[in-house]
């Protein structure tokens, strides 16, 4: 579909098989990231953001989870069918991931240096001293001070912000082509959050790493991303470059999300929030999953499920019948 895409997800479906039956946490997701791009992925809690990218990493807990359908291409290699051994050589090396919980994502029993050098020595045949050099270099790059002391400390001796920087250093140590950051700043306070985002933007520019920034905060997207994908109930409902999305949102859900961003210029304290809740995955059997909460819903929305319709320029796709006409009109 896209020649410059370094990572491409096609029709991905990942389900969890629980006592209540199959839960399709991710259902028919299409996404791609270009080389060196900063892609934002937004959506409310439970919409399948983490599951999508854990699928990319091959880290879905199995059982109960499994990739049921679809393809994931990394530089043309299909990942969903790759043997575990080959997948391991990509994981952490070509595609790295950092997680939401900096406080618990580092092993409490090993020194920072050990955990960093381990990340690089898994993929590259280099001696301990060189690995240590490289670890200190990375710690410096993510803006941590006194790196030669730092590598001998344990995680519990560091603050949350420092730990997340260590996580970023660890993810970047093999110079990956894609970095997946799953809500990297959610657990941090606002000033630290700003610094971490700044850092990731810098790394993206300096090292040309494609970064996928998962977040439920559109403010984060506005600040750092080039392009954005909005997810709802296990599906991508709209993708566009950041400017277009903020200025001309098409999907009613995206509009709702934009309306619920706190705005300092707004005089009133009242904040808009989309009525209703995110449906449980798989609970909506037919029709548009957003229909129960959508102000624009009409007959067809309850009967059929909309597809991802390309907009007037190819990069603005939207999964809504209101924009299905545009497609037929333009053709």
């Amino acid at each position, binding site marked *: 579909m896209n020649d410059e895409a370094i990572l491409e997800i096609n029709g991905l479906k990942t389900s969890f098989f629980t006592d209540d039956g199959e839960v399709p946490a991710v259902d028919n997701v299409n996404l791609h990231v270009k080389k060196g791009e900063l892609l934002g992925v937004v959506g409310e809690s439970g919409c399948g953001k983490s599951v999508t990218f854990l699928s990319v990493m091959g880290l879905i807990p199995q059982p109960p989870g499994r990739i049921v359908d679809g393809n994931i291409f990394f530089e043309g290699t299909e990942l969903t069918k790759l043997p575990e051994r080959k997948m391991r050589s*990509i994981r952490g090396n070509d595609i790295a*991931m950092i*997680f939401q919980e900096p406080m*618990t*994502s580092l*092993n409490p029993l090993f020194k920072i240096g050990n955990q960093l050098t*381990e990340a690089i020595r898994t993929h590259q045949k280099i001696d301990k001293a060189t690995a240590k050099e490289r670890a200190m270099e990375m710690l410096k790059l993510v803006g941590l001070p006194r790196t030669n002391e730092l590598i001998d400390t344990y995680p519990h001796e560091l603050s949350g912000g420092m730990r997340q920087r260590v*996580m970023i250093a660890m993810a970047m140590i093999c110079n990956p082509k894609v970095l997946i950051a799953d809500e990297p700043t959610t657990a941090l306070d606002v000033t630290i959050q700003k610094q971490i985002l700044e850092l990731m933007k810098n790394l993206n520019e300096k090292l040309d790493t494609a970064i996928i920034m998962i977040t439920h905060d559109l403010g984060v997207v506005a600040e750092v991303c080039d392009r954005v994908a909005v997810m709802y109930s296990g599906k991508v409902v709209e993708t566009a470059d950041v400017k277009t999305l903020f200025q001309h949102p098409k999907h009613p859900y995206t509009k709702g999300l934009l309306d619920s961003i706190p705005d300092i210029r707004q005089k009133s304290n009242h904040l808009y929030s989309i009525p209703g809740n995110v449906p449980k995955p798989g609970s909506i059997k037919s029709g548009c999953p957003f229909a129960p909460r959508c102000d624009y819903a009409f007959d067809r929305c309850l009967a059929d499920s909309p597809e991802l319709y390309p907009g007037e320029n190819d990069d603005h796709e939207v999964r809504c019948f209101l924009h299905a006409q545009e497609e037929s009109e333009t053709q």
Partner: protein
Amino acid sequence: MTAYIIRRILMLIPVLFGVSLLVFSIIYLIPGNPAQVILGQRATTEAIAEVERQLGLDQPFYIQYFSYIGDLLTGDLGTSIKTKTAISEEIWPYLAATMELTLVAMVIAIFVGVNAGIISAWFHNSWFDYIAMILALIGVSMPVFWLGLMEQYVFAVRLDWLPSTGRYDPSTVIDSITNFYLIDTLIQGEFGKFKNLLSHIILPGAALATIPMAIIARMTRSTMLEVMKSDFIRTARAKGLNNIWVVYKHSLRNAVIPVLTVVGLQTGLLLGGAILTETIFGWPGIGRYIYDAIQARDYPVIQSGILIIATIFVIINLIVDLLYAAIDPRIKYK
């Protein structure tokens, strides 16, 4: 760390005083008169009074206790009534025999238990998991003496693979250095004798290993299941580490602390003398030594035996605590 260790060792002193007081009081708690025991049933009252005076039994309790402590501090554990030998001299071979047996049992228990627990956790809800956990359940609830008898029947009597009792063949002569015969014979390069000793220790070792093994397996499984859900394990896997590395480096080390507690406790229990097992297998250990002393109402031996076992218990506890601190950097040396 060194300061912490020293402090912990100093903290043992009051504990050991308490233990010694308790052990010393035993003589007042159990029925019978030591002087009577020494002299036999037909002794005259005068003779008994004379012996009581010699033993200091006519002194007030606290004087007796302080002279007892004084003796202990000089390494004097008293004299056996039965053998008239210094207990400090005769107890060591028994203790070493028990320690050797315990060591073998715990090595088996830890090796099998930990690995079974890991495999069960990794493949949880698989047939391996089910079978291992059923065996573990049977293991913890099986009377050890019965298991010992069955082992003897199958492996010694029926199959005749291994000797059924004793520490070595009576015809063998072992030049003891440390009283740990397995080590002694290895040092001396006496491999024939080593094999002989090994064949004797396997059955009682396996019998004693059963319960700790089962408990360790269950404990390892449950803590590993817990740890493997942690965020840092996901991080380890996201780095591209292979499963062996994820399990044995990142998971096991985090799961090991509760297991260590169990290992310490069980080691203490085994060292405390597995009297039944030692009797069944004719093992000349501390359990047997104390048991015989109880039969003979050999009070000084009972006292010293219990004191030594209690001391070992306390020391094992200390070692376990120190190991916690060595493994987990979050434990403050305070």
